[in-house]
């Protein structure tokens, strides 16, 4: 009869080895930077960094919802949809769209094509203008884009435009100022140097909470970040610079800090697409500085006043 001692010894040795290896690996795993088990976010545990790939898909999906399903596929002409319209309309990003946004389908190519257009959305609409119903008074339907924007932010917390676009629609068309501020703060926590989020947060304080002191602080911080990050670039983000500088200038003018307002207007003019208009504004402020009495109506500004 063969002895059973040797197999038992081998089994015991293997168990000891397994236990030791597990104890060693567990310690290493807990300290490993790539350990995703500590994250409370299910998506990041399941998908890792690959989730960022899907973030843009859901951002575009939100824009398709903004158009009530009327949206070009990869087979259609997408020139008029380079920048998602919901982002462009929010005024938080500069647009790069050109071409006819209402007719990307073109003329029907055959009878099947013509017939099929009865079975899917074939008319350009925006949710903030009533969507498919065409009820111009009803802009609350824009809430339908929110699930996809939230999902996009969950998948890629470093995509700044998701925060700014979401916050705009939340506070402007849904009246959810607290939620917009919270969402922007979540974004700022993930992207502490983002001048875009600081600027948008400033708008929340200026336009919705009427707390101009905080708005000024945020816009000044945004301007500093812009100068730090964008100024050295050969093709900087002019759109946001003009927005920040113009808002600061108008805020200072409104508060009676004319010298500071002129300094910001000079910055604004330096990168403005219509410097003559800004110059008119500068002249107006100078005139106001020279004569404390009312200086006539204020000139038109390309940007919205705070």
């Amino acid at each position, binding site marked *: 009869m063969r002895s059973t001692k040797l197999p038992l010894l081998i089994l015991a040795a293997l168990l000891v080895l397994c236990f030791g290896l597990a104890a060693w690996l567990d310690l290493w795993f807990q300290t490993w930077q790539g350990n995703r088990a500590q994250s409370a976010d299910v998506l990041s545990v399941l998908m890792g960094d690959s989730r960022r790939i899907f973030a843009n898909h859901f951002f575009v999906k939100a824009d398709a919802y903004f158009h009530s399903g009327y949206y070009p596929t990869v087979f259609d002409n997408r020139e008029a949809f380079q920048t998602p319209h919901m982002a462009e309309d929010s005024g938080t990003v500069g647009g790069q769209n050109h071409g006819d946004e209402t007719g990307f389908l073109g003329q029907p190519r055959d009878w099947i094509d013509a017939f*099929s257009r009865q*079975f*899917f959305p074939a008319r350009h609409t925006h949710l903030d203008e009533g969507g498919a119903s065409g009820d111009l008074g009803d802009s609350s339907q824009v*809430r339908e884009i929110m*699930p996809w924007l939230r999902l996009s932010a969950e998948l890629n917390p470093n995509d700044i435009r998701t925060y700014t676009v979401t916050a705009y629609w939340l506070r402007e068309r849904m009246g959810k100022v607290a*939620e917009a501020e919270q*969402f922007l703060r979540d974004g700022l926590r993930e992207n502490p140097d983002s001048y875009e989020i600081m600027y948008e947060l400033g708008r929340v304080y200026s336009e919705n909470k009427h707390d101009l002191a905080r708005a000024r602080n945020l816009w000044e911080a945004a301007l500093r970040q812009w100068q730090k990050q964008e100024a050295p670039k050969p093709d900087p983000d002019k759109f946001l610079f003009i927005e920040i500088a113009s808002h600061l200038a108008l805020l200072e003018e409104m508060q009676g800090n004319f010298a500071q307002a002129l300094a910001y207007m000079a910055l604004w003019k330096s990168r403005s697409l219509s410097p003559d208009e800004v110059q008119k504004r500068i002249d107006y402020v100078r005139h106001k500085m020279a004569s404390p009495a009312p200086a006539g109506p204020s000139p038109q500004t390309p940007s919205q006043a705070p």
Partner: protein
Amino acid sequence: MNEIFAVAGVVIKELYRRKDFYVLFILTVLICLVMASVNFFNDSHIVRYLKEICLLLIWICSLAIAITTTARQIPAERENRTLFPLLAKPLSRTRLLLGKFLGCWLACGLMLLCFYLFFGALAASREHHWPLLNYLQAALLHWVMLAVVIAFTLLGSLVFTAPSSNITISFASVAFILLLARHLNKVALQLPEPRRSILYGLYYCIPHLELFDVRDLIIHDWPPIAWTVCGVAALYALAYASALLIGACLIFHRKAIN
């Protein structure tokens, strides 16, 4: 005609005795309820994402049930040796096939009824209105589309040796048509001859199942489609289903049963 209905009745009984439908229905309900419980910025009126998920699940489940149920009809009869007594009734092969088709189609209709009732209830719980006409159109167009799928799978069950290969090929074909058929003409126009003519020919030949997918209209609350347009679409689908059934009958008549 009675014989066709008798065969169809057996197929319907088979569907409600099997667990496929119940499992898929409960799964759909659970997924939708979990998704409905998600809070987005404290707004309880957001509904379109939920409608989209629910309709997507309904489409996937209906295709799964329609194809798998149809694909095993004839092979199961052959395997269980019940095909011989059935044809000895006397029941012609054509009537047997028509009975199987009708049974699968009606069973799918009952399944769609349950799914769309759930969908309507889910949407109404958030929207507080019930566009019945739109839902009715969507369900009817969906059901008519399934007639083509069932006829195609029935034909496949006579051509392919194993139900598994038939199911795979049917699923792949239906997915291809639903996802890409609408764009084949655009791709064809970019190609040089003779590939252009070949692709355009394919575009005209295939049944355009994507016509019946009106989910976007339902999700985004577009007005209902004109009933005449729906009628023409139904005729289009029934013409394809008839052609596929005639093909299936011709093959079945020439096929050795044993």
